């Protein structure tokens, strides 16, 4: 009985240890986004609240918390309120299996990769339900676009991860990282470069970020699926989007950039490498947003179905042949588990 209770307390403690820093990271990612894009546009960005604007995310948060939540007439009230929660919950739940360093994870399951795929694929419900429950044409169009886009890119993303599976011989995230030890040339980014590119771009599309943010294309459908949300309900969508971004960056680091492994063989590994790599990948999200104009919808579909999926299928075949012939050093068949 007391053992069970103690176990429960440790698990809840671990979850808090992951979720609280994650939320702070989300807050400062929004700040970083505004600053980075500001500098790219040759302006200063937020600099009024606190030293160099460092308290800006909290000011935004308090503003959103004190705003009124407006419920549209004829909306489906229950679904309207549960939609933001459904968007946020999978984004947080997926963090349960992310290893930050050797043994630093809330839980280690041997089907970790599958679990992550399942959780990220559920995030779309928040968007669809929000679009439908708002009872608004714009929100509904945004939801439809988002659903089609996420389903299309999930296939390419899943195939890209199949390549990782074939090379690492394991579904467990710690094993995948362990298989990439020994410096930058052993990272899966090198043998699986096309899959890495496809994975990351599909990840940008999955999170509905620019240039794939047609689900909230302001110029056509106002703000897409969350046009009727205000105050805290909107803030939860915002949180989910940024938590998903950090998630995709962390996954790219785990699958292709060696997780907590140091880039130079011999230098100590550790969580600091993981965080540094994740921050680097996150910079790309901001950079994309400052650089590329929004894709047209049919171009997004064409890219997903006619470019990414064939690329991944071809590269999976290449990896299969390489693994069959035990091409050193990357494709040597590893003993699973």
């Amino acid at each position, binding site marked *: 009985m007391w053992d069970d209770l103690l176990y429960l307390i440790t698990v809840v403690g671990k979850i808090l240890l992951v979720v609280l820093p994650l939320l702070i990271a989300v807050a400062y990612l929004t700040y970083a986004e505004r600053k980075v894009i500001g500098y790219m546009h040759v302006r200063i960005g937020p600099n009024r609240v606190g030293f160099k604007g460092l308290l800006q995310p909290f000011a935004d948060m308090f503003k959103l918390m004190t705003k009124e939540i407006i419920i549209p007439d004829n909306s489906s009230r229950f679904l309207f309120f549960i939609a933001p929660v459904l968007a946020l919950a999978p984004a947080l739940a997926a963090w349960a299996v992310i290893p930050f360093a050797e043994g630093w994870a809330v839980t280690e399951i041997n089907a970790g990769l*599958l679990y992550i795929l399942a959780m990220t694929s559920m995030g779309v419900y928040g968007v669809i339900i929000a679009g439908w429950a708002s009872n608004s044409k714009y929100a509904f169009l945004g939801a439809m676009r988002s659903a089609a886009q996420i*389903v299309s890119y999930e296939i390419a993303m899943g195939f890209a991860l199949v390549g990782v599976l074939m090379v690492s011989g394991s579904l467990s995230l710690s094993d995948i990282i362990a298989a990439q030890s020994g410096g930058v040339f052993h990272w899966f980014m090198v043998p699986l470069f096309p899959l890495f590119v496809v994975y990351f771009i599909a990840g940008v599309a999955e999170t509905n970020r620019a240039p794939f943010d047609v689900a909230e294309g302001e110029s056509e459908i106002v703000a897409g699926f969350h046009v009727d949300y205000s105050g805290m309900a909107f803030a939860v969508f915002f949180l989910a989007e940024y938590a998903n971004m950090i998630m995709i960056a962390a996954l790219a680091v785990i699958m292709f950039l060696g997780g907590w492994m140091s880039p130079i063989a011999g230098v100590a590994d550790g969580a600091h490498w993981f965080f540094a790599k994740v921050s680097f990948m996150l910079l790309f999200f901001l950079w994309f947003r400052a650089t590329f104009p929004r894709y047209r919808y049919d171009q997004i579909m064409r890219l997903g179905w006619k470019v990414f999926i064939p690329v991944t299928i071809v590269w999976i075949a290449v990896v299969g042949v390489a693994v069959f012939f035990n091409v050193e050093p990357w494709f040597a068949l590893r003993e699973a588990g």
Partner: protein
Amino acid sequence: MTFQLFVFLVFALTLLGAATAVITVRNPVNAALFLVLAFFSSAGIWLLLEAEFLAITLVLVYVGAVMVLFLFVVMMLDINLAPITEGFASYLPVAVGVGLIMSVELILVLSRDFFSAEQFPQPTPKPADHSNTEVLGELIYTEYLYPFEIAAVILLVAIVAAISLTMRKRPQTKYQDPSEQIKVSKADRLRVVSMDAEEKP
């Protein structure tokens, strides 16, 4: 009551409730969402059975992809319930008859010895590092290779058939050909005319 039993009861009751709601709620979108809940609860029950691969795949494939497309379609349809439920009473005797026959058949099948509790001894818990995925993969690619490959071919045929049935050229739809768009040069679109700045009087 052990913790596992408690978890099982929660998932099982949710599953039954959601499954009932799927066929009783009036709004088709709500019904589809209840079906999602039913899938998710059954995935939870499979997890309790230590079938983690099947459980996660159920969520990944059915909840994450199939139901999203389902909702996509159901949300766009404007379903008017009145004509569908019309004549409910006149069909009722037939429906009750069919339902009764099916229940009796099910009861007859399920009450056989084959499905009795003795036939299925309680499985012994596997060690924590037991990989369900690996065992399944090995079985599929060795012992059940032919059934697996045949199923794959059948699915492929179904995909091709479904696409060829629904793909038809609609004359009023405007298509864009990206390669043609890229090939366009200045000479195709622009004509420079040399003319005088002012008309001569």
